[in-house]
């Protein structure tokens, strides 16, 4: 909305006679860097501590033999409002110049020469294309989509204290009447691929929250954006330059060994710089802990004795729960080749059914061409790294490569690491197991144990950042890291204002996400419910046919199963519809629709938006316009069931029109009045 009033804080510049308060930020990942930036902008004096030589944490790159290797590949989703605000506004960089949008991602089966395209279901075209993609039967795909909407529309208790709410994604699916094995397997595959976590341990409320953010039909948004450079060159180096320009003291290669609190709650840091003989100690006015959960637990528990000050956990015992959090390493193999592989798509590729959960990305088509000299470079990541039966990097690399060769036979028969008799350029190729760059796991029940941005009552001079912290984006993402860094900075600023009675700088605030209101999700679920159960019946029928065709119906078991399933469809659908209708009614009477807030999209607006898109789609058919499906390497234009309905009049008309035009070219029936 347009308001012309400026925040009063901005108008009144504080004239601090006293020196700016000093803030220590421990952890130079995306969360810590964001907190540093926001605090510097507000006029704080910031020292950023990073254990390794480079900033970036899980978004860092490592330089080996002159080649940049990213910790692991990242998806920059379109809805990462805080990240894009940081990149475009704070760093002043252009998204279009540095990123390329991808409408979807690809799947490849072993032994198949072809790819299946899955588009981000944010337009009618993409939805229809997905249904016809062949990744699963259209009925199973519809069920997969429905399960996502269903989970997004569930109401979970947000404290994480409710025992029944400590539910995993797979368990949630099991509780649904429409669940099929293929849907459960696909959900598991997606979670493993992106978050390295199995669906049977992923927190359902947390994943539901992620789905609420990412289900954005019909806004035509792409699946994600890919950085057209290494993380270091494309993101971290300009970020660091910005911090330095703002006067940040950056201490890389500097391990913070302990953080204790003085009698005034100030954090006392003890650190050791790489190569230095002695440790240094200093008390800061404020501290932000933005390190991975293991390091954070160590700092909070501070097991080392003989250090002045009190332990953090003594002030806030809840933080002992940090020890319950878990994470997982994703081994990554950067395969630099001596040749150019033709026909390799420029999309994220999931290798369906691979051991170790392999994904591949051709960076030579993405990063600046001069880095590759016309040759191909592939980043192969093992999302299920714990399945690799080796802890030796090169051995692990060979195992990954052998698995990779099942999909790409060009890589078959490589004998050992450094085998000169193959297409791999070993001098540039690099493997890392990433034991020190683990990905935080959103496992069941973890929400209750994740740290908040701040504990103003007990820890007035500390804040917490990083993707493990509780934010509006629950799933571990870069967006979560940026948002938590912002919230940590805001907490420090607020505490400082409380102590000094004067707000320093402009108010630090995160960017709210535009999501559909709960009512909207519930309405969508109800709307889709009949087709979901119809799809479920269809799947049961398909299974029966398959069993019969395979001759597995000896004693009529398959038929019995079919009859059972079909008999249960109606009561199950009725139960779910009744429950869904109740929750829909509840969200209506709870009035979350009356003013769903600036960023939540209310039911009415959503309904008009969807109707408008359908009308737009139908108008295209009527007007004879070819609407391309968003382009990907393997995308083909399809027209599916719903499209038939929307466009049936248009195409019938078009056909008649064309036939008439073709058939009557010779004798025109203009009659001239004489």
């Amino acid at each position: 909305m347009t308001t012309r009033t400026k925040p009063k804080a901005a108008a009144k510049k504080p004239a601090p006679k006293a020196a700016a308060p000093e803030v220590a930020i421990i952890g130079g990942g995306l969360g810590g860097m964001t907190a540093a930036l926001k605090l510097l902008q507000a006029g704080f004096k910031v020292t950023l501590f990073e254990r390794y030589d480079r900033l970036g944490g899980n978004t860092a790159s490592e330089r080996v033999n002159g080649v940049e290797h990213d910790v692991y590949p990242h998806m920059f989703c379109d809805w990462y409002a805080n990240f894009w605000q940081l990149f475009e506004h704070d760093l002043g960089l252009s998204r279009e110049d540095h990123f390329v949008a991808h409408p979807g991602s690809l799947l490849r089966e072993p032994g198949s020469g072809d790819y299946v395209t899955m588009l981000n279901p944010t337009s009618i075209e993409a939805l229809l294309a997905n249904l016809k993609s062949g990744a699963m039967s259209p009925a199973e795909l519809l069920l997969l989509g429905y399960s996502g909407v269903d989970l997004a529309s569930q109401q979970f208790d947000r404290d994480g204290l409710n025992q029944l709410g400590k539910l995993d994604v797979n368990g949630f699916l099991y509780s649904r009447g429409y669940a099929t094995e293929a849907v459960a397997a696909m959900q598991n595959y997606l979670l493993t691929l992106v978050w390295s976590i199995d669906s049977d341990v992923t927190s359902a409320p947390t994943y539901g929250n992620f789905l609420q953010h990412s289900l954005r039909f019909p806004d035509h948004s792409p699946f994600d954006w890919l950085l057209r450079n290494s993380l270091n060159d494309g993101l971290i180096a300009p970020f660091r330059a910005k911090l330095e320009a703002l006067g940040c003291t950056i201490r890389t290669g500097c391990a913070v060994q302990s953080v204790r609190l003085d009698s005034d709650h100030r954090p006392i840091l003890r650190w050791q710089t790489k190569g230095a003989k002695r440790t240094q100690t200093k008390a800061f006015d404020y501290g932000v802990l933005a390190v991975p959960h293991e390091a954070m637990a160590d700092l909070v528990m501070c097991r080392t004795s003989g250090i002045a000050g009190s332990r953090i956990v003594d002030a806030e015992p809840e933080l002992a729960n940090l020890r319950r959090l878990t994470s997982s390493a994703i081994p990554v193999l950067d395969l630099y080749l001596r040749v150019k592989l033709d026909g390799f798509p420029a999309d994220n590729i999931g290798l369906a059914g691979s051991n170790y959960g392999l994904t591949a990305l051709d960076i030579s088509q993405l990063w600046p061409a001069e880095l590759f000299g016309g040759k191909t470079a592939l980043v192969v990541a093992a999302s299920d790294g714990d399945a690799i039966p080796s802890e030796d990097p090169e051995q692990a690399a060979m195992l990954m490569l052998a698995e990779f060769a099942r999909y790409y036979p060009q890589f078959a028969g490589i004998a050992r690491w450094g085998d000169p008799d193959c297409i791999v350029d070993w001098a540039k190729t690099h493997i890392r197991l990433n034991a020190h760059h683990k990905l935080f796991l959103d496992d069941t029940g973890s929400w209750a144990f994740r740290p908040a941005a701040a504990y103003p009552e007990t820890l007035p001079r500390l804040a917490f950042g990083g993707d493990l912290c509780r934010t509006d984006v629950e799933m571990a993402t870069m967006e979560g890291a940026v948002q938590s860094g912002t919230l940590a900075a805001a907490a420090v600023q607020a505490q400082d204002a409380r102590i000094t009675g004067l707000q320093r700088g402009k108010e630090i605030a995160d960017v709210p996400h535009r999501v559909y209101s709960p009512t909207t999700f519930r309405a969508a679920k109800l709307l889709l419910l009949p087709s979901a159960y119809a799809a479920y019946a269809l799947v049961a029928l398909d299974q029966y046919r398959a069993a019969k065709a395979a001759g597995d119906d000896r004693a009529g078991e398959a038929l019995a199963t079919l009859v059972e399933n079909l008999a249960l469809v109606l009561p199950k659908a009725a139960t779910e519809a009744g429950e869904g209708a109740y929750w829909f009614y509840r969200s209506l009477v709870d009035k979350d629709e009356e003013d769903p807030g600036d960023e939540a999209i209310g039911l009415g607006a959503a309904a008009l938006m969807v109707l408008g898109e359908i009308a737009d789609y139908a108008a295209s058919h009527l007007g004879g316009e070819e609407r391309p499906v968003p382009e990907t390497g393997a995308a083909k234009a399809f027209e599916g069931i719903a499209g038939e309905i929307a466009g049936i009049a248009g195409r019938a008309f078009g056909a008649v029109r064309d036939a008439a035009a073709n058939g009557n070219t010779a004798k025109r029936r203009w009659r001239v009045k004489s």
Partner: protein
Amino acid sequence: MARTQRFDAIVVGGGPAGSAMGWALATRGIKVAVVEKAVFPREKVCGDFVEPAGLRILEHRGCIPQLDLGKRLPITRNRVYYEARLPYHGEIPYYDGAHGMPPHGYIIPRDQLDTVLLQNAEDAGATVFRGAAAKVLEREGDSNILFARQGKEELRLEAPVIVGADGVQSMVAKTKDLRRTDRRHIGASQRVYLDNLEIEEGEATIWFDEDQIPGYGWMFPMTGGRANMGIGLLTETCDRFGMSVQHCFRDAVERLRFRHPGCRNARVASKPLGGAVHMYGGITRNHFDGGILIGDAGSFVDPMTGEGITQGMESAILGAHSVALALEAGRFDEAQFASFERDFRAYFDPAMRYLVLLAQLLRNRHFHESMFIGTRKGFERAQVQRSFGEISGTSFGGLNVQPLAMTGQLLWSLAEHFLRGGAAAFVDAISGRGFTGNGAVEDLLAWQRGWRASTAHDLGWHLSWLGDIVRAMGTLGPSFLMDENPRLRGPIAFLEAQS
């Protein structure tokens, strides 16, 4: 320290709303002061059009003789231009002279109108401070203290009730933190007096240009070849699309010269003046501890036409009732003045809420093609079908807004257009004429271009706009359920029926 003068009520502002309040309170025997910063006569940015409902109030107050209506031109006819086309030319279809209203409106320049009206309030017994600029409003206990400056003299007025009738830049609204800033509901206008015109007597002209949508221009003729001419635009649109009211206005003067044969030699006879209008949809609350807001200060302007003179007087008469009740009860808190909210909602909501919805629908400039074609077809239909002009015509002026009938008419027209167009296209195709540029299909594609431009330009805004439409639809209950628009019988009859 200025000597304190005590009243029962102080009205800040002596325009149509303020003077009506002064008159209405004074005739009830209430001791009222009207504080007007200007010394009348003075110019005011306005279309100067007083519609029949306004004239009915003026007649009730007995100021018709002073206004010399006999010497003025009644506005009986209208021309509607769409760029160079003239889709409507004829009688104004919706004024019928029923319910004690004259069958025509008049153009009465505001310098004359406001002077007469304020005098009328004074004659009725109100104390009028002319040339007295209200400076500061304070609240002490149950009392409002208004400090004003009249020439060199400081005034200190005290009353339990304060009425803000001080226009768009209302000092009272600002003090009470009720001044509207929501540019979705604020219009901007600019107007001038033209002379050297040769126009048929009593024929107004309005026009729409596709590059100045949402908005319109007007020319209201007076005697002696003079006319009030101006344009109005929505400020939100100006902000979003970098449109300048001044530029649009200059273009409009030029265009008028060549589109209207009677304006070929038009001469600008006064300095163009710009102003803002706060429209009904932007009302948050019009009452507070110690008083109420009326007229433009209370955002009582029609969201489609930008008319506000009549609504200003109507809101004053409704408000006077609440003020009298408060004085009777000896209570002056916000809850007491909530009776004003109830009254004006009951009175205005049925018609205004519907007009707010129409204005919301027309708010998205990306749909300029569709809006332009669609509304033009409406005027074309009104030209040949009188009932369409009588009912749907009231979306753009006129009092007898009948939402149910209008919705039926509009939806039926749309359905008919697209069904007929679809059928025609089909017949064309099968009879071998091939694909002809069919109107209905073209209109659908024009809509589609708007939809795509809007979603691509700013999806967040687009969604919030859709949300606004839905919210506007959600308040239509009173519009569809009413037997008769309360405005039809006027505020005085409305209050009488209540008691």
